[in-house]
């Protein structure tokens, strides 16, 4: 059965190997130079006071140079798309193509049960799917390590400065790509077994996977662990976004990008609260005079009127628990779908 699986999977396997190799060549050709730029940036061994500045400069340099930003983006997009492509082109046809061409009648009438046939196919192709996607992710992680370190030092100011919890970085680094690949593959196989035609099965696979990949970072991931809440003084905020509106600046909106003392935390929401602890957007009358002109004075004024910033966040230390949990969810879904395929095949579909 291994032999037959390989015969049928050869073209896809070679395509995937070629894609991996091309990606590796691209990264190996540019990675060392990226690392040397990092070495020259002086971030390594920086004084605490200057680290953030040096890191921002480094990221700015990469961003304006263009190439690295494009490569980074390319890598991320490839890793995000790989599971979908695998689900479409490896998963969906696995059973559907056999049913469509009638070869299922040939395969399932050799001296081997359907369960074994599917087990070998799912295992070998599924492991290949996982290996390819995780391989891409690890290569990208190696290449982009300097960028990650600079972001870790607090570097900011460009699109490259995405934290580990940002949707893009979280979904392309660590072990999550592995879970996505396993799930997308199993989803494709199941859709194929149910719909029995390859192209519609591909469409359904893509639709479901896309919806889940959007829902995950937006609604599901933040709920995986109970978020923490904290209230901090306005004065201690160092990265704020302030909007003012209404007549003479009678209303304001105060947000923050990071949390003092919690580097790398995942901020879910932030907003001003009044002395009683309720969310507020009304500028205290005494502060309207400063409001439009002088931001520091305005913030001081807000602080002196008991207004503070409430932040909901996930601490940075939860990065790996989040990674493991999310990957486990996707793997469990994949196993559930695979189990369903076994049951369906044994209930004699032909």
């Amino acid at each position, binding site marked *: *059965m291994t*032999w*037959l699986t390989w*015969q*049928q999977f050869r073209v896809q396997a070679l395509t995937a190997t070629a894609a991996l190799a091309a990606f590796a060549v691209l990264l190996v050709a540019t990675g060392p130079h990226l690392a040397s730029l990092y070495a020259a940036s002086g971030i390594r061994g920086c004084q605490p006071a200057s680290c953030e500045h040096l890191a921002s400069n480094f990221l700015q340099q990469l961003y304006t140079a263009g190439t690295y930003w494009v490569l980074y983006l390319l890598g991320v997009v490839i890793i995000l798309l790989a599971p979908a492509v695998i689900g479409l082109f490896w998963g969906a046809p696995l059973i559907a193509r056999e049913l469509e*061409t*009638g*070869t*299922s*009648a*040939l395969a*399932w*009438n*050799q*001296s*081997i*049960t*359907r369960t*074994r046939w599917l087990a070998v196919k799912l295992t070998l192709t599924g492991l290949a799917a996982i290996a390819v996607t995780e391989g891409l992710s690890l290569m990208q992680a190696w290449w982009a390590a300097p960028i990650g370190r600079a972001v870790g030092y607090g570097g900011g100011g460009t699109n490259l400065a995405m934290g580990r919890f940002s949707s893009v970085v979280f979904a392309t680094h660590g072990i999550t790509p592995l879970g996505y690949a396993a799930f997308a593959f199993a989803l494709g196989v199941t859709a194929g077994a149910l719909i029995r035609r390859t192209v519609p099965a591909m469409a359904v696979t893509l639709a479901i996977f896309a919806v889940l990949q959007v829902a995950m970072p937006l609604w599901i991931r933040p709920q995986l662990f109970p978020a923490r809440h904290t209230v901090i003084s306005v004065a201690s905020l160092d990265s704020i976004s302030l909007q003012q509106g209404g007549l003479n600046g009678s209303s304001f909106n105060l947000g923050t990008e990071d949390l003092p003392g919690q580097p790398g935390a995942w901020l879910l929401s932030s907003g001003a609260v009044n002395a009683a602890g309720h969310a507020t957007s009304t500028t205290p009358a005494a502060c309207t005079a400063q409001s439009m002109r002088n931001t520091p004075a305005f913030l001081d004024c807000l602080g002196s009127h008991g207004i503070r910033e409430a932040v909901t966040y996930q601490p940075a230390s939860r990065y790996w628990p989040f990674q493991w949990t999310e990957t486990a969810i996707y793997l469990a879904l994949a196993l559930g779908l695979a189990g369903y395929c076994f049951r369906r095949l044994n*209930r*004699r579909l*032909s």
Partner: protein
Amino acid sequence: MTAVIEAGGLGKRYRRLWALSDCTLSVPAGHVVGLVGPNGAGKTTLLGLATGMLAPTTGTIEVLGGRPAAGPGQLARVGYLAQDAPVYAGLSVAAHLRLGAHLNPDWDAELARGRIDRLDLDLRQKAGTLSGGQRAQLALTLAVAKRPELLILDEPVASLDPLARREFLQDLMEATAEQGLSVVLSSHLVGDLERVCDYLIVLVGSRVRLAGPVEELLARHHLLSGPRRDPGSLPDGMQVISASHTDVQSTLLVRTSGPILDPAWTVSEVTLEDLVLAYMSQAAGRGRRNHLEVQR
């Protein structure tokens, strides 16, 4: 000897449509069984149930005493050539033989190679580029070389031209004789089966209308012609399967266990084709009458 196919009250429904209903059959071993019926009669469904490609909705079916496709052992005992002889278009002829060798413990490599050589198939040719006849031969080679006890073929010659048809059936008969196989093959044309079958099952409108050894069936049916008379006036034990009348003459196809004694009849032998057509039109007529009754 165990029956090759033993079915009791077997039925298969697709959504609301019964493709096969109330099928009770016992096909003894050692025959070449022809399963004949018009398109859509349920032949493929019956064979699908026998190979375990389909699960029955009602009733039971046992093949060679076991549940179809129950395990590797059962699968090894039954060879199946599905309709249109599916093969992997992207794999070569040689790869198909290796597939058979890998997936069947009793694979007869010599037999397979011998057949491919005799059929003049190019081992390196992709199966997708073979002609219909060659493809059927390749699929038959796979089914035969796994050394089954029972070979099931679904419309094996439907897509072949007359010459390829004859060659295929001849070849099938040789393989059958050499290996002492039981064979069940279906066709919607009696002509295909006449030369090769010694057991016949007629399936019309999802029901089995007739089943038995060909010789016995031919011995029990007679074609009577004589002066016109009412079929109802025939003696008991004589069942009219089909009747046609001119102004003066009646021609009846009857089923009877005893001899025809009435001297008014000219008795002649029926051919297999007459027989099958009579049962098919009888079933069709019955269907039509039922339909009318419903409308009324």
